[in-house]
């Protein structure tokens, strides 16, 4: 019965094996080739025994976690506004969320170059308000990079949440308020559990996007903030060390995969499930 149901999925399964799993296996194979032509886990040992490389790995994961946390903070009021809004206002919020996605990541990143630069509105406003002596640039700084990534990744959390919150049961909120819960407590104990699976799905997308965003990391972060995607490019495009590049790619995939797995397991936690 199960096999019969799988028949329509075979083309997709075949495509996944050919174009996703196959290249991944190849990538893993290349990562096992040492500089002297020998095979083994030498590249992994070289990377993990080097303090600088470990720092780059840690910085990449830490960047992803900080962006995910900040996106959640920024999105919370928007989600609450969406929940309380009427049909028309919801439409406007949805358009506002989708609109930036109609332009490419590259365009949004270069827009942030203008905004964060010395002559941009942020630097000029700070100087105009007398908070700094002369206009400052936030380009090539960690706060600048995080601000840009938070804006770019926001839709990936908002859209799944908007999709789920439309179906959330309002009666549970009314019931909580009827028995004396304050508005915040009522919201967090009734609505939040219902949208939590969508929040966790969004976190996975935001985390994956922030840790692997080569363009934003290099254009806004510059050459002094080094994360794994630039490290991979450096190995291929400058040092021509393809096996080490494959090793770092596998480590990036594994480490981000582990964080995403942890988030996925969290979403299956019974106490966090809706109406748990």
């Amino acid at each position, binding site marked *: 019965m199960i096999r019969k149901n799988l028949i329509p999925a075979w083309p997709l399964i075949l495509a996944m094996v050919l174009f996703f799993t196959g290249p991944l296996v190849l990538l893993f194979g290349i990562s096992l080739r040492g500089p002297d032509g020998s095979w083994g886990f030498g590249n992994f040992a070289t990377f993990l025994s080097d303090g*600088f490389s470990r*720092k*780059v790995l840690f910085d990449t994961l830490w960047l992803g976690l900080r962006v995910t946390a900040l996106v959640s903070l920024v999105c919370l009021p928007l989600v609450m506004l969406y929940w309380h809004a009427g049909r028309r206002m919801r439409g406007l919020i949805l358009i506002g969320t989708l609109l930036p996605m109609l332009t490419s990541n590259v365009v949004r990143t270069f827009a942030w*170059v*203008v905004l964060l*630069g*010395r*002559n941009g509105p942020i630097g000029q406003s700070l100087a105009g308000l007398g908070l700094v002596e002369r206009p400052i*640039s936030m*380009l*090539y700084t*960690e706060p600048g990079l995080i601000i840009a990534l938070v804006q770019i990744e926001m839709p990936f959390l908002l859209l799944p949440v908007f999709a789920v919150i439309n179906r959330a049961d309002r009666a549970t909120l009314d019931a909580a308020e009827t028995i004396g819960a304050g508005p915040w407590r009522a919201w967090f104990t009734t609505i939040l559990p219902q949208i939590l699976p969508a929040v966790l799905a969004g976190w996975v997308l935001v985390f994956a996007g922030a840790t692997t965003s080569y363009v934003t990391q*290099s*254009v806004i972060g*510059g*050459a*002094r*903030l*080094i994360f794994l995607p630039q490290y991979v490019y*450096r190995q*291929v*495009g*400058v*040092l*021509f060390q*393809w096996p080490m590049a494959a090793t770092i790619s596998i480590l990036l995939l594994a480490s981000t995969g582990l964080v995403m797995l942890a988030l996925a397991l969290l979403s299956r936690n019974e106490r966090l499930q809706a109406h748990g």
Partner: protein
Amino acid sequence: MTLDLTRRAFTLAGLSALATPALIRPARAAGSKIVAATFPGSWEDAYRSTLTPTQAQEGFDLTIAPALAQDQIAKLMASRNAPPYDAILVSPGQTDVLIRNDLIEKIDPTRLKNWDKLMPAAQSAWGPHVTIEINGIAYNPDMVDEPTGYKALFEDPQYDKLVAFTGFEQNAAVMAWTEINKLYGGSYDNMQPVWELIAKNIDKLTIATSGDNQMALYQQGEIAVFMCSTGNVAHLNDLGLNCKFAKPASGVPAVPVTIHMVKGASNPDGVYAYMDAAISAAAQTQMAKAPTAMIPMNTDVPYSDEISAFITPEEVAKAAYPDWVAINKHRAAWTEQFDRIVAM
């Protein structure tokens, strides 16, 4: 007269008509298509607008593919058996890597009509030099005084936080850093002076990701000084920006740029035609003008006004030509060391 056409015959004829271009195109493509890599930006624009039409007249379908020199090599290494380019455009630093990895082949100069017009120094067995890039210091005269040399950028406080450099993946940066290292007592085998200098001044410098990135930062007013070629300054001037070229007191580093025939190129005849067009008087005259202002290698082509504003033929003859074989022995280690010093 009526045409008696059954539905089956009509469908078959329609499908045949649709399939015809697909059957013809591969045969045509194999004979006339050339893919030539050039640097992105003004190089790409100039080569596409100047050489693509002349090649079309000769029956070759020239595709200009923009890629940085290091990226061109990375792509060739990734697919040796089916190279993505027929011709590539690089500097001696990369030529050495290409030769050692058996990725390019020597050319037959008799196949180039314009070969004898080239300066003797531009007649390389591995392909013609199409220009020499003269490097120096680009600065914004509205923001800072003309730098007297590299040392001033580190020692004169007016340049603090306004100077950009890139890492050792860029040829211009390699030339500048090695020259600076010499000024502070170092050599190719001893880069310690420059590492100490970078570490000491890192908070006063902007480290850009690429040469093009430096120009974008200059446009945005983020920086006022960067290590450049005369072509970079000509390009910024062409965009209406006030940018001047300063020649370091220690001498101007220079680097030829060469077209190479890729080993296993699908269309060698096309590559020869492309090389010949690139060193022809017509193309070299055009590219000597703004915004590219490329120093001509064809002896029939005089320096344009734009080039003369930067440099004279006598100064070009006296320029410093780095030892790229010696540099390449250390370049990977320098690149890694630089990253470790500048990383936040």
